[in-house]
């Protein structure tokens, strides 16, 4: 199966986002590099608003991801509640 990934800057804003992604995607692997974290996952990966909100204790708009996002791969499906990355194969 193909891998998707999302890469985020390493900072205070992303610490909880990364934690949420890893909690929601047990198959994902975080790979720490200088100033960035790259999360790889087989097949698909979901970023869930509710999990992030629980961790940060405030409302979170998934589009806030854009501020600290470095890169990603896969088809993107974005709703108010989830951002999903996936390949069709």
């Amino acid at each position, binding site marked *: 199966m*193909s891998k998707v990934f999302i890469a985020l800057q390493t900072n205070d804003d992303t610490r909880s986002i990364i934690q949420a992604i890893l909690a929601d995607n047990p198959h994902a692997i975080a790979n720490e*590099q*200088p*100033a960035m974290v790259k999360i790889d996952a087989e097949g698909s990966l979901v970023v869930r608003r509710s999990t992030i909100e629980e961790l940060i204790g405030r409302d979170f708009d998934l589009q806030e991801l854009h*501020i600290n*996002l*470095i890169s990603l791969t896969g088809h993107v499906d974005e*709703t108010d509640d989830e951002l999903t990355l996936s390949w069709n194969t």
Partner: protein
Amino acid sequence: MDMKVSKKKLGLKEKYQHMTRGLGWETTYQSMDEVFPYAKYEGIKIHDWEKWEDPFRLTMDAYWKYQAEKERKLYAIIDAYAQNNGHLSVTDARYINAVKLFLNGISPLEYMAHRGFAHAGRQFPGVGPRVACLMQSLDEIRHAQTQIHSLSNYNKYYNGFHEYRHMLERVWYLSVPRSFFDDAYTAGPFEFMVAIGFSFEYVLTNLLFVPFVSGAAYNGDMGTMTFGFSAQSDEARHMTLGLEVIKFILEQDPDNLPIVQQWIDKWTWRGYRVLTLVGMMMDYMLPKRIMSWKEAWEVYFEENGGALFKDLARYGIRPPKWLDQIEQDKDHISHQAWGTFYNYAAACNFHTWIPTDDELDWLSQKYPNSFDKYYRPRLEFWREEAKKGNRFYNKTLPMLCQTCQIPMIFTEPGDPTQICYREVDYKDNKYHFCSDGCKEIFEHEPEKYIQAWLPVHQIYQGNCFNEGVDPTAEGFDPLAAVLDYYHLNFGRDNLDFEGSEDQRNFEAWRGMATKNT
């Protein structure tokens, strides 16, 4: 009938729908074909622009909000970096040469990308891609500006940054990135989107912005790290746009497949050739290394690109051509490029050097199949010669490839000891190429590529001297005349790092930063 109570706030999808699609209309005073004159000539058939789906449903109001926040973060870091004399905290002054290459060779492409997306956006009859192109066009001018602002801090202290605009259109090696973008920009809007939106952004820019920029952070360059990641945060959106373009075009009409495939083959190869420069930056110009070019290639091209093309196979798309050669080349191109710049360092606006022993060991370890056999002995020989006072600066102008404009430095697939030459007779001239890829690209559009402005040809034709210079005068020094024309200061901007003004200044200033003298 029950009235459906409308929600107070629109959902993301509905909001996006209202804020993009609702803004378009069919023209009546002039025909749509007259208003969008480039929409059909490339042969791409679009039946329903409404089928366009923008996966990041970003509307202009949200765009401004998030971009403003990115800018505030970026400038806070750039200011702090400048106020704190951050340039003195980079690992080693050799590193600064990597950002010279960035400013001279890459930032101007961001500006061309801005123009290209503004143009493509204007030419698409569909509203969805128009909005996406508008945002990308704004992103790209932001990238050009933030890179120039950030790197202008280095221009206050170091040589080689002073005339990037002037040099872009003149200096020999800068014709490589420039002609790449000129080629894309002068294509039709669909080809531009496949060239830059898909092949460059999706398949290749990760290699530039992710490992290299992470490397900048590793080497203490906060300025480059912050503009790099800030730019890349837009790239995620661009990549998504690039992928959407491909899917949209392919789903619209089966006749589009062969056209798109040919563009993917061409632009993956073109982009791959340009990235030779980045390979060299990663393997030779970052004093503290994060990953080799080969490793980055394997993660970001082979793994990600592989997943992408496996996914696109359902449309009949196959992986780009010449992958066999690309696969072999990853052991070689960064070394071949650095060897070339070391040879031509007299005509460069940055400094070169022979890697230190521990850096040579690192390269041996990262390139077990090629480095000790082909490249290390050469570098060690040059180092010995330089020690003996025989530092050789090549003044013979190299033959250039008509398509990618890189000197003929690449080797035959399967034989790294043999330079690869290809040629084509077209009309009354012979044209030369570095590879099967570049040759085939030429053969597909010869009338375009015979117009190439090749720096070596131009020098020999006498077009690269300042006005009033007489090449027939006694004692005429062609290299000096060309460097004048480039606005390149001999002995300051060029030659070896060892003994350069940059090296001396950095040492002196770093000393002042840590001692009370």
